[in-house]
Every structure is written in C-alpha cells, then in structure tokens.
C-alpha cells in the first residue's frame, strides 16, 4: 500500500491539516458508551454545575485526547504510526464548542532507521483558546 505521507516530505514548521468537531452530548454520550465513562458531570447540567462548571455538563478530556490522535492518524495515514501523545488539560470542553486540533512540526530526524517527527499539538476552541496544549511523536515511512 502506498503511504500517505513520507518522512522526506515533512520539515520543521509544517502545519497539521485542521481537524475539527463541534461537540455536545451526541459526541460525549457515544464516547461514554465505548469507554464506560458515565461520570454524572459529563451527562447532566446540574452535576456539571456542582462540579464547578457554570456551563453545566462538560466533555471528557479523553475524547479531546482521541481527537489529537485521530487528527494525527488522518494526516500520516495507515502506513505510519503515532508513537506518543502528551497534553495538559487547561480548559473545559463546553457544550457546543467547536474544537480544532492544531499541530506544528518541531523537528524531523532520523533515529536509526526511523523517520521520527516531533510536533507541538493542541485542541483550540472557537475563541482561539488552547484547551490542551501538548506534544506528539509520529513515525513516518521513508522513501525507498
């Protein structure tokens, strides 16, 4: 199978293609169902407010983490692999937020035979606020 992206095609400063989702209970309930993550404050506005979020129920950090992973995977394709993702949760995901995964290549280097690419990543809301800044490492195939 032909790779979607090769190591030789990437350089520092390249941007990850924008990857967005507008999130609400439709997204959160589906994720709760597969991850068995039925925390009351992700489901119910009154519980969300009791947990300190005036906007009511709020989204899961793990789902935003999945969005970072999926944005990276869509960019690199199935012949490459995501090796590492890290992020800090800085802001809650409110109902109706449009979340966009952003990423910028910091370095592309050969480590042994591996084409290793390090990125700064984040999930930014519709107001431009960073909700979970972090980093990622992907391994890209090399051209023969």
């Amino acid at each position, binding site marked *: *199978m032909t790779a979607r992206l090769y190591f030789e095609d990437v350089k520092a400063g390249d941007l990850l293609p924008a990857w967005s*989702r507008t999130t609400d209970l*439709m*997204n959160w309930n*589906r*994720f709760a*169902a*597969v*991850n*068995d*993550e039925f925390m009351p404050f992700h489901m119910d506005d009154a519980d969300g407010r009791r947990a300190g979020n005036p906007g009511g129920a709020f989204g899961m*950090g*793990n*789902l935003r*983490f*999945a*969005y970072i*992973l*999926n944005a990276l*995977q*869509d960019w690199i394709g*199935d*012949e490459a*692999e*995501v*090796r*590492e*993702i*890290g*992020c*800090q*949760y800085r802001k809650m995901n409110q109902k109706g937020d449009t979340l966009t995964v952003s990423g910028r290549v910091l370095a592309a280097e050969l480590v042994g035979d591996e084409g290793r690419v390090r990125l700064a990543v984040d999930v930014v809301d519709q107001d431009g606020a960073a909700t*979970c800044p*972090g980093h990622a490492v992907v391994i890209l195939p090399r051209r023969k």
Partner: protein
Amino acid sequence: MATGVTTLITQELRDLEGVWGEPRRSPPVAASDIRKWAIATYWPNTPPPIHWDEAYAAGTRWGGIVAPADFNPFAWPIRRTPLAPLPTPKGLTLTSLNGGQVETYGAPQRPGDIIVDRMRVASFRERHGRFGLMLHVEVENEWTNQDGAFVRRRLSTFIRY
C-alpha cells in the same frame, strides 16, 4: 485545600512510590468493540477502514484490523472493582483534577488480544500554586499483550489540593 502542613508527601506516600500493583487482564479484544470505539471517536465522520474493514486492513503493513491507539479494552468489566483511591496524606481531604497525560505506544491492539495492565504511582511532587500547597501525583499504567509485547504506557498527572 491543604492548610497548616509543610509537606503533603508523607513517609506513607513515599513508601508507595514506584511499587507496582497486582496486574489485571482484559477480556479478549473484539473487532466490534474496535469498530464502535472508532465510530465514537470519529463521530460524526466515518472512521478509517483500518479499524473495521478486514479486506482493506489486510493490504496494509499491519495485515489486519488494528484498534485506535487509545482503545481501552478494560471498559465494561463483568465485576467492577472500585478504583483504588489516590493516595492522600492522613487527615486531609483533597480536591483532585485531571492534569493531563502522556501515552507512548508500541504493538497495536488487534482482535483477540488479551491486554495485561499494571499500575504504580511513579512519583509524588509538590508545589505552591493558586490553591496553596498542591500535590502532583503521577500514575503509570503499563500494558503488554498476550505475547509479552509492550503495547502502551500512560503517565497520568493528578493535581490534588
């Protein structure tokens, strides 16, 4: 909030640092669970066929369906064992926030895999923040598969104050 104490990292907590707990085993990973996980995390878009189309997946470097790297095979246990509480210095009630996580991936999870998880507190750190003295607890989960291959390491940071 911790008031009237000079440190949150008591000897009792130090004794827990680095000690692995008893491992737990997942039920066999099911292709349908992988498909549903991919649908949920790509919603409302169609997820990539590597997670649900065996014929397509067979033509990739993986040779078959693989799960998204963040797939959790431990969801929906038959017997629910309460999660061990985060270590807390005696006499204090602390609020806990999910500060973030770092996940490192190895072998992909495939249908039929059985994943073994072991967990430990990797480190305690403390610092002064806007809520006073705050305890950062770093919890490490390490997953291997039925062949002993490394699958995933997750370092979760919980902030307690």
